[in-house]
């Protein structure tokens, strides 16, 4: 009985989480006239809204920009955060704990506080309307460092020493021993970073003005709020569906590692 009640609660929670996504998917598949009807049930579905999105805005280019930015950011966060995580977990040097405390401290500073100084820096570097403006500020993350440090601490020192004896330098130890042993952590950092980068709207709005440099969320926001969608709910939802599909695909593919990583590090995204 207790188990049944527990399952009922979990089902209710799952439905409340999934409902907005289902609603968005159904609305995006309805014809223009049906979109506002408010019911899931419809006599037929259409891809008309998706066609409208591709006709109205250069969504392909935005998709490419988002892919370039999100993948570059994810790769660099995994590389640089694991480098720092390795140093903080396994190398002995003066001030190691202080550096770690400073890294933790940066996690407590709201991102909005650093927007203005970052923007000023980007302008001075002449990176407005260029990929470096979208990638460079997010190439390393405190959250990534923390996850990698916690994971690497649990790897026995004997393995490092054995690898050193067998001819590895520190970078080789990281890439040949620590990375393969930390797949869940890498996937966790990867998915969280990819998701954050993919969904980022505010920063691209600040540093990108040319349409051909816009990322997906920026383009869709401009499209929906800026009036290009003509206020059509179905078209707006179709654009939003296009935005979330890559995230869902990545999660579905790496789900096992992601859950393992979150469970082992105790950190949520």
């Amino acid at each position: 009985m207790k188990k049944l009640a527990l399952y009922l609660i979990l089902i209710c929670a799952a439905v409340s989480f999934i409902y907005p996504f289902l609603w968005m998917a159904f609305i995006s598949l309805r014809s223009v006239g049906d979109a506002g009807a408010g019911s899931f049930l419809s006599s037929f579905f259409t891809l008309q809204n998706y066609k409208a999105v591709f006709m109205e805005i250069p969504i392909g280019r935005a998709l490419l920009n988002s892919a370039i930015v999100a993948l570059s950011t994810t790769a660099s966060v995994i590389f640089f955060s694991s480098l720092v995580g390795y140093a903080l977990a396994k190398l002995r040097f003066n001030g190691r704990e202080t550096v770690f405390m400073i890294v933790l401290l940066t996690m407590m500073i709201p991102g909005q506080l650093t927007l203005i100084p970052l923007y000023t820096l980007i302008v001075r570097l002449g990176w407005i309307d260029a990929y470096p403006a979208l990638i460079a500020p997010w190439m390393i993350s405190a959250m990534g460092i923390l996850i990698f440090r916690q994971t690497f601490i649990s790897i026995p020192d004997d393995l490092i020493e054995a690898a050193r004896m067998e001819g590895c330098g520190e970078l080789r130890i990281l890439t040949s021993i620590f990375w393969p042993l930390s797949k869940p952590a890498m996937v966790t950092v990867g998915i969280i970073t990819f998701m954050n980068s993919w969904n980022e709207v505010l920063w691209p709005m600040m540093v990108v003005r040319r349409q051909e440099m816009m990322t997906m969320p920026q383009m869709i926001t401009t499209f929906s709020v800026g009036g290009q969608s003509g206020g059509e709910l179905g078209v707006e939802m179709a654009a939003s569906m296009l935005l979330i599909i890559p995230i869902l695909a990545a999660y579905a593919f790496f789900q096992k590692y992601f859950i393992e990583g979150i469970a082992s590090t105790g950190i949520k995204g």
Partner: protein
Amino acid sequence: MAKVIFEKVVKRYPSGDRDTVRELSLTIDDGEFLVLVGPSGCGKSTILRMLAGLINVTAGKIFIDGKDITRLHPKDRDISMVFQNYALFPHLNVYDNIAFGLKMRGAPKKEIDDRVREAAALLGIVPLLHKKPKELSGGQSQRVAVGRAIVRRPKVFLFDEPLSNLDAKMRTQMRAEISRLHRRLKATAIYVTHDQCEAMTMADRMVVLHDGVIGQCGTPHEIYSAPRNTFVATFIGSPPMNLFAAQAVCEGAASGLKINNFVLPLPPLTAARLEIGSKYTFGIRPEHIYLADRVPPGVNSSVPLACEVELAESMGNDVVLHCNSGGLAFQASLKHDFPVKSGDKINVVFALDKSHVFDEKGERVA
């Protein structure tokens, strides 16, 4: 292979208030199997790790084949090491674990394959080559770790308590295998253990360490039969050597040691080295104590000493008796060919030609 020289090597950890290794000077000959033995914290693993380059030397120098390697990176020293916990890479199978060092050094694929298979055949682990470390038993893991060490054919092999995680039977088996392997490879090997049995059975020469200094260095037989001090005397040998506080006395024409209420006459050569009236420590190994009526021929025995058996521990072949004679407690290890039980009163004698005398500082006198 190679000759290894430690020249006044000192190690002090940043957090320590004293030196863990104090001015160690030691030469290990080409092809020698040297065992470093001592209790926990005596500095034996520190010495090994300094030689491996895993920790820095505070002062002094280390040479391999005349080349100063004190500041070299571990990978440039041409040394292999077998770790206590095997340190096999969990994500690689046995083949890749053994091949790891050769791959890192960019050896050709064909050579890697030949050498891995040769090492695996030597250690009898060919059927395990495709397995992951988690599928292996302790003994198999240790063989793989040894395989990884020998495949590179380094100048020096280091073993850091490699058998301590194995059960007693497997330990005995691996002990013999490592000894056979050493004889076959004729490699310079340095082996660290806290197990005196391993040290005695495997070593060409052993170093007993105490508090970061060499207590004694010599062949197992030298160390067993003529320990340099009371620490070595009690550390090597199981059960440990019995030590009694004593005073040199002269009774009539003969000199001897007074222990408790009885006087133990000593052989003239031993007695000549004692100063009458000074305090000494008398040592006798449990296996050099006999029942008074069962003394083997040719043994120069003491006068009988009456004692009570407080505890008799049967070891199968031998029996260890915990005896007490008027407050004087000692252990005797006797052949298990007579009935004896706790509470029995027996007479024992000491084999005087096997006895040891140490001065007040614990240094050997005779």
